[in-house]
């Protein structure tokens, strides 16, 4: 747990952070956000004592960080920065091994840990271990940067715009990858960004700062539905309803659905369509193939498979783990009121309608 109480930082006459009181619970993903110069980096760097406080206290797991030796404290917290800062004279393995070697881990343990982390970040150890930072792409370098911060398995991770310098596609890949890793590891994370979409996507709770002061500290849902003031409202932008949908998973809002098999006789399927208005047609393993409704019943076909209107699997089937925002986008694009929801193997698990999304 990280507790900031009445933390103030002044640089000469400039107040970078003013009377900030914020608590980050164990295992929480906290995102600090605000306009440039609002004191995000300063706040983060006060937690690992790279910047001394002017007044106030910061406690980590109940202990005042001011009473800890700075080096000792920092080895227990991962630190990731936007410009990565990999050591150019060390290999990828050497970079990741820095904190373990400061902590004097035995070599075998360090080596095993390096490979484990490279695997976790999808970098094949045998080909990446001995590369130098200059041989890595931006995305790979930042993966190594995050892996390096996690090397000694710290319970706290401080990240200052870690994905800020990456192109949008790489950034999104790393965000997805990182939230998967975070779900596995359950670290306590303080993450700085000025990208509201990134904050909404990743955060358990968002801390909005303005000119060094706390404006709102809440879950992304709350911030989107109940912005504290005009500033927050403007900061999150006019598409906040859509942003809210991006936090919701389709699988949490879908409903059970009626389905028939491709080989079922149309007569049998017809009863279900009559009762339900329509039905999804699936093949043997439950993969969605098409859709039956009242009109398709009258064509004189023998089986559901012959009568159905085929469904475009790539565009019209919503993955269960997609956000409602993505579901809505696909449905609007294809002009659908209802769409089938499928698991990662394409098997029908439910359906979602525009009404479901509007009510979400």
């Amino acid at each position: 747990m990280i507790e900031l109480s009445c933390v103030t930082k002044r640089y000469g006459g400039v107040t970078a952070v003013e009377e900030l009181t914020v608590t980050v619970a164990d295992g929480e993903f906290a995102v600090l956000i605000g306009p440039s110069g609002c004191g995000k980096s300063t706040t983060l760097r006060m937690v690992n004592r790279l910047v001394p406080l002017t007044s106030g206290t910061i406690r980590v797991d109940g202990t005042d960080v001011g009473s800890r030796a700075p080096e000792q404290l920092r080895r227990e917290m991962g630190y990731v920065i936007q410009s990565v800062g990999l050591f150019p004279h060390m290999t990828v393995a050497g970079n990741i091994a820095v904190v373990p070697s400061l902590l004097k881990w035995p070599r075998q343990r360090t080596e095993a840990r390096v490979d484990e982390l490279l695997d976790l970040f999808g970098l094949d150890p045998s080909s990446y271990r001995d590369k130098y930072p200059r041989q890595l792409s931006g995305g790979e370098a930042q993966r190594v940067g995050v892996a390096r911060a996690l090397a000694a398995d710290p319970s706290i991770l401080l990240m200052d715009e870690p994905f800020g310098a990456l192109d949008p596609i790489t950034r999104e890949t790393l965000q997805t990858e990182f939230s998967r890793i975070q779900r596995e590891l359950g670290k306590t994370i303080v993450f700085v960004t000025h990208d509201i979409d990134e904050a909404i996507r990743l955060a358990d709770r968002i801390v909005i700062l303005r000119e060094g002061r706390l404006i709102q500290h809440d879950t992304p849902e709350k911030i989107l539905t109940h912005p504290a003031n005009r500033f927050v409202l403007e900061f999150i932008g006019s598409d906040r309803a859509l942003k809210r949908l991006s936090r919701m998973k389709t699988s949490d809002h879908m409903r059970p659905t009626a389905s028939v098999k491709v080989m079922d006789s149309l007569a049998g399927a017809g009863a279900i369509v009559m009762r339900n208005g329509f039905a999804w047609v699936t093949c043997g393993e439950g993969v969605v193939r098409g859709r039956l409704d009242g009109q398709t019943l009258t064509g004189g076909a023998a089986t559901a498979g012959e009568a159905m209107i085929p469904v475009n699997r790539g565009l019209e089937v919503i993955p269960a783990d997609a956000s409602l925002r993505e579901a809505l986008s696909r449905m609007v694009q294809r002009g659908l009121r209802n769409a089938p929801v499928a698991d990662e193997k394409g098997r029908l698990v439910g359906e979602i309608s525009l009404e479901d999304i509007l009510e979400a």
Partner: protein
Amino acid sequence: MTDRNRRTLIPLAALAGLFVLLTAWMDPWRMVLSTVFPTLDKVVYPLAPFRRLVAEHILLVGSSSILASTAGLCIGIAVTRQWGREFLPAVNALASMGQTFPPVAVLALAVPAVGFGFKPTVIALFLYGLLPVLRNTIAGLQTLDPAVLEAASGMGMNPLQILTLVEIPLALPVIMAGVRISTVINIGTATLGATIGAGGLGKPIIAGLIGENPAYIIEGAVLVGLFAILVDGVLGIVSRDRADG
């Protein structure tokens, strides 16, 4: 060792062979120089064997360059630490001014202070050789990527670990370039030591100038030149090897 280094190794080894040959053996000198200067009655410097002169020269340059490099490195590190930073502008100014000071003048000033011979020459060479090392050490340490240094302290390295594990390894190519310049300059400058009785390869040169014997001058100059090229090449390989990790 890199390919580039391997390629420079062969000519360097040949040069080293030539240098040893010309140091140890007088006959080639006698043969060549007596045909070039048929009117001279003595063509080989008679007062000391070349191996002794070379040994004296190595001693002069070696001791002064080791001292200069160590001191330059230490001062350069000190003035780039937080606690030494206030001295940086003064040291910087001194280093660039000192470079314009002629070595003969340093020698002339050192003699009244410590007398003639080996000592004043080493002092003069030390002072003169200090500057390139110092300047390059400061430059190397000051141009490091701030993100790398922030990462180093953010990961929990203490100042000494940051210096030895990050700063020096990264600045080493620049520092080594300074050591190289300093040593090579000192090899040439050390010949001036002969004027105040420090011995070395300056002796035949001075003797040749005074006695109007160009053969002596050539002997000293060729050996000094070979020595300088050799040391330059060796230090070049060492610093490149480091730079390539």
